[in-house]
């Protein structure tokens, strides 16, 4: 049986305590909430920590609250609780779908939104056991000198693995960060850096405490969709996801639009220029096709996960088209991916 290495566990009950512990423990400390990312990584020894600080004892980090300006989701709210929440499902169907697509139901009962946002970037040369990684003399992301995905690359190409992140980026959500120096708020889109190793823009001593999604009143005309490509109808990480949020005027014209791609870059990848193409127009075949071309250009699928990169690149257009057609209420050629909200 694969087991965890010995560690010291701390279980603070307030954010302040947690922030203080984190600062005091230095680089050898890590945060854990659901444990669905950290524990596998530690079992395989590609993440290490002498001290682990569990956020599960902090009650204020849990729960979904409707506030005046935003829907506030506590960072350790489980993914299941989000999927089950009627407010989320009604106002942000794309978010409900994105979260419902994460791994499997038992894992969603453990995994948290904050954890999903901070989930480590992934790569088939990295998410392997210590022994396996020795066999390739490690990789750039950990201890090695070469990125085996692109051997001449000076950077690591591990891909973003969060399903919630691209959707929250598209919805214009923000995260609250707390540290011993205080708190700050950051758009989710600014939480990420385009680097497979140093993928989070937050300081290691900062704790994600909540996520705020612009309020339902503001998003009344917001339509969201999330399309995820993966091998199986469950368990798998995305090899591509398309998260789209489009705000429509009363006459059906696009007021705002945001599209982000998951798993085809080291961070959620913005489809730049999509809003310019769509603004003031209706979602029709021509506009959608133009956005699809932009999406294809933005994606950088690499040989670091399932399926061949070139095909995943082609699928960027197809899945972007599907997401936008879904938002436009147009028929979608391919049946929706087999995940979703059936049993929740």
């Amino acid at each position: 049986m694969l087991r965890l290495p010995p560690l010291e566990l701390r279980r603070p009950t307030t954010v302040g305590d947690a922030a203080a512990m984190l600062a005091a423990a230095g680089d050898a400390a890590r945060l854990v909430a659901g444990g669905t990312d950290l524990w596998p990584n530690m079992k395989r020894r590609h993440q290490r920590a002498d001290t682990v600080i569990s956020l599960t004892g902090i009650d204020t980090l849990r729960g979904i609250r409707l506030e005046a300006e935003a829907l506030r989701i506590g960072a350790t709210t489980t993914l299941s609780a989000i999927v089950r929440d009627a407010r989320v499902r009604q106002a942000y169907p794309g978010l409900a779908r994105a979260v419902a697509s994460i791994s499997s139901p038992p894992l969603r009962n453990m995994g948290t939104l904050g954890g999903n946002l901070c989930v480590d970037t992934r790569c088939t040369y990295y998410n392997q056991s210590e022994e396996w990684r020795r066999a390739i003399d490690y990789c750039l992301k950990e201890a090695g000198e070469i990125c085996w995905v692109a051997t001449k690359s000076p950077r690591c190409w591990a891909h973003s693995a969060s399903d919630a992140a691209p959707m929250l980026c598209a919805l214009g959500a923000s995260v609250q960060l707390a540290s011993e120096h205080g708190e700050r708020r950051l758009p989710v889109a600014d939480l990420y850096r385009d680097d497979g190793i140093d993928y989070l823009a937050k300081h290691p001593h900062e704790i994600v405490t909540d996520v705020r999604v612009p309020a339902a009143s503001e998003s009344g005309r917001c339509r969201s969709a999330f399309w995820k490509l993966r091998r199986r109808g469950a368990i798998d990480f995305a090899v591509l996801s398309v998260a789209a949020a489009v705000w429509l005027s009363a006459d059906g014209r696009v007021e705002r639009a945001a599209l982000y791609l998951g798993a085809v870059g080291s961070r959620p990848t913005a489809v730049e220029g999509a809003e310019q193409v769509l603004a003031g127009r209706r979602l029709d075949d021509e506009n959608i096709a133009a956005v699809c071309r932009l999406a294809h250009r933005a994606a950088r699928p690499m040989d670091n996960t399932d399926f061949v990169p070139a095909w995943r690149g082609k699928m960027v257009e197809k899945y972007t088209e599907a997401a936008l057609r879904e938002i436009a209420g147009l028929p979608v050629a391919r049946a929706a991916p087999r995940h979703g909200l059936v049993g929740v």
Partner: protein
Amino acid sequence: MTVCDSATASFVVNGEAQTIAFPVHHTLLEVLRERCGLPGTKHGCELGECGTCSVLVDGEPVLSCLLLAIEASGRRIETVEGLQQGNRLHPLQRAFADLGAAQCGYCTPGMLMVAKALLRTHPEPTAAQIEEALSGNLCRCTGYGRIVQAVQWAAAMLRGDPWRPPAEAFFGATATDDAGTS
């Protein structure tokens, strides 16, 4: 606030209060199998990728390989060993047994526990709901169809509904003549 590298925890396991000491980095899977004398919970990857080790914590399915036992302290844990009442099998157990939904039986404990949680909230689940609820549990033997039917059968038994899987599930489909034979 607690600081610990070894731990003593109390939880209610299958209705029985237990207080157990274990290293803090041990998962619920290890503690159940190796300290509580409950090896009925199995493991297939210990990385959260197969669902085999699913147990219920406060009624919710979780992957015991990814939950530190200390984090389950004070909570209600259910494993396959707690499913039967006395010597009477739970309807899920009866249905799995009679329908051949357990072949090698290795994924069965996890399947049973996730199914139990489903039936608590969905007394009459559709096939799609069962497939979704169990979608994190892999089985290499059955092809899943019998598991779906067994859960439906158990749900019917629990409702007192006489529904049972069709004869086809016990004897196979009946070959018919092809009307279109040329």
